[in-house]
């Protein structure tokens, strides 16, 4: 048992990496650093929070717009109703006036 353990330990002992390993790691770190440094004015990093705020603002704007549109429609409808009522009243008063004139003409001796 002990002998087998020793064999495994010896088979799996630490070994040197290929020459220049550390230099290659440092070169990759350097190239990664260059890639992550965005040139000035190229792109503004936008986070998820930023997108959520933008979506919320857009939703509020749409809701306010819809509310205003509905209010304007209701006001126009009310104005139209008032105008129609006034026209009906005018027509009735004209008709009443004409009836009166006709009655007077009939009743005159």
């Amino acid at each position, binding site marked *: 048992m002990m002998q087998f353990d020793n064999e*495994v330990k*010896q*088979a*799996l002992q*630490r*070994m*040197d990496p*290929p020459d220049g*390993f550390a230099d290659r790691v440092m070169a990759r770190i350097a190239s*990664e650093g260059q890639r992550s440094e965005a040139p000035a004015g190229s792109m503004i990093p936008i986070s998820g929070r930023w997108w959520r705020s933008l979506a919320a603002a857009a939703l509020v704007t749409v809701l306010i717009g819809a509310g205003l549109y509905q209010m304007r429609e209701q006001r126009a409808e009310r104005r139209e109703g008032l105008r129609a009522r006034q026209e009906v009243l005018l027509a009735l008063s004209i008709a009443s006036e004409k009836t009166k004139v006709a009655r007077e003409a009939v009743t005159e001796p």
Partner: protein
Amino acid sequence: MSSWQTSACEERAFALAEADFADVVREHERMVFSIARNMVGDPAAAEELAQEAFLELFRHRDEIESKSHLLFWLRRVTTNRCIDAIRRRRPMLAIDEVPELSEPARYRDPLMSRALRSGMQELPSGQRAVITLRYQEELGLSEIAEALALPLPTVKSHLRRGLARLRTQLETLSRRSP
């Protein structure tokens, strides 16, 4: 308290500076490369995985609290990356394809070592990880459990089953050879 946690005094004194990173790589390259090599077998794949482990360390260097935490972190990240790589590719090296180590060992039976390293490549990733950390890094079972975030009974089971399979493979091989 975890095995890598040390005194507050040491933690205060420790800082993984960007300027010293090359020294950190040189200090731990043998350990990291060997874990990868013992787990994936192929030297080129091992180098790639070892490089990635150091790149990840560089990205997270501000989180490293002490020298022991650095060791713990490197072992865990390297092992996990190797487990992922094994699960993705499952490379199986035949005994003839397992390269000889560049470093001659004084008391080692080269054929036996080669057979064992070849046998390692046929074990499931979890068993490979436990055996590598146990025999290469000489970690205790609870340290391995902590590094791999596995329950202690699972670590014991991986070790027992992995060694049993290695022994069986060696016996099969010795029966085949004249």
